């Protein structure tokens, strides 16, 4: 029985604290490159701040965590990769990026409408001794390859191994929680198996407040968002292209 792992992110609950970004980077051994900028860094989980463009008391701002949407259908990056460094994992539905196979042509990055893919412009490096704090469950990527959210597959591996050692076939779902989901202080990110109708996350995807970014493109993302605020839902389909003004750091 194949799982379809996905997420529902409740934007009304997100306070933009950044814990998910930090936990993600720590879990996946993302290097803190001093030279990197907002456009050359590696942030598999990136929280973006968007406002409704109003001023004074009428102003609303919302924080939108952007990660790989794990598109189920016509997955743009999978189709373009010349050497099968990207695939939709059959068993889990996770869109999987293989840095060791990647030749760094970056075609997949131009293909992704969510800008959820990142190129390693620099050799990964840490201050002296800090490599001792690297997570042994995830291999460090080398310079010149593309990477993105792999849904903390390192944790999936340990869950599988634990199950196998206990003589079980299926993993205990409690053993597999991605870092960002675990880190969110407001439990705004719910993770689950969307193929399982009884899964709470799967049920939430049917809520009237649930939506997906650029759903009209037809790539069937497995990352859903949720908000009760109308203007936020409108952000999903970038109707005008010129959306509300974005906060610059």
């Amino acid at each position, binding site marked *: 029985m194949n799982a379809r792992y996905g997420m529902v992110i409740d934007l009304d609950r997100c306070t933009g604290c950044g814990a998910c970004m930090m936990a993600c980077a720590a879990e996946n051994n993302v290097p803190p490159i001093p030279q990197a900028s907002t456009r050359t860094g590696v942030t598999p989980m990136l929280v973006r701040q968007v406002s409704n463009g109003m001023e004074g008391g009428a102003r609303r701002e919302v924080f939108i965590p952007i990660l790989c949407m794990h598109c189920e259908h016509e997955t743009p990056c999978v189709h373009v990769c010349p050497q099968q460094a990207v*695939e939709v*994992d059959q068993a889990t539905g996770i869109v*999987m990026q293989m840095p060791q196979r990647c030749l760094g042509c970056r075609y997949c990055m131009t293909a992704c409408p969510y800008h959820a893919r990142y190129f390693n412009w620099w050799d990964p490096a840490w201050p002296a001794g800090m490599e001792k704090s690297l997570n042994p469950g995830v291999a460090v990527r080398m310079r010149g390859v593309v990477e993105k959210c792999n849904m903390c597959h390192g944790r999936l591996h340990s869950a599988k*191994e634990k*199950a196998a*050692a206990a003589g079980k076939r299926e993993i205990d779902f409690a053993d597999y929680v991605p870092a960002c989901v675990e880190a969110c202080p407001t439990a705004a990110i719910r993770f689950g198996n969307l193929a399982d109708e009884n899964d709470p996350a799967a049920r939430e995807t049917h809520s009237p407040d649930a939506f997906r970014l650029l759903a009209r493109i037809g790539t069937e993302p497995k990352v859903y968002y949720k908000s009760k605020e109308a203007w936020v839902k409108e952000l999903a389909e970038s109707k005008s292209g010129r959306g509300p003004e974005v906060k610059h750091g």
Partner: protein
Amino acid sequence: MSRNALAAGLGFAVALLCGWVAFPRALYVQRQQPLEFRHKTHAEKSGITQCNDCHALRDDGVFAGLPAAATCAACHAERMGTSKDEAILVDKYIKPGQETPWLVYSRQPANAWFSHAIHVRRAALACAECHAAYGESDTARIYELNRISGYSRDIWGHSMSRLGRAPGDGMKMGDCEDCHRRHKVEVGCLGCHE
């Protein structure tokens, strides 16, 4: 014309010679293990019969790999013989509490994830299927390091042509894939890569 052919033939022969004989010697550098180790002796003398008597799984299912010095110390706390390797083991490593810097023939890179639990517990594969009969070996053979890739030669396997290899000789991704194909087990890249 014939003279041309002769020259060409000569060149061809020289190329073959270099490629098959000189090249492997140049590519691999030979390393000695820190001390001699005999699986055979351990099996016969100390009644250690199961691989996992020493190479066990931890409680979380993670394979512990080579036994820690502490495990050896269970018997080798003091010298158990007069061999010089025994002396090295006890004096150089066990007494000072140092781990023995074994050279691991089957070490895979960090980006490859392999679960002994899944293959041994669930799939019930015999150790020899991948590690050949090393368990009965009577010596710690030379470790050959690939100068370019930094891998142990065991990953590529001993025959340079990779033709007609004995089972357990060679641990490249292709070899994993063959076995998976034979057992009809589908795993994507995600299955074995970190």
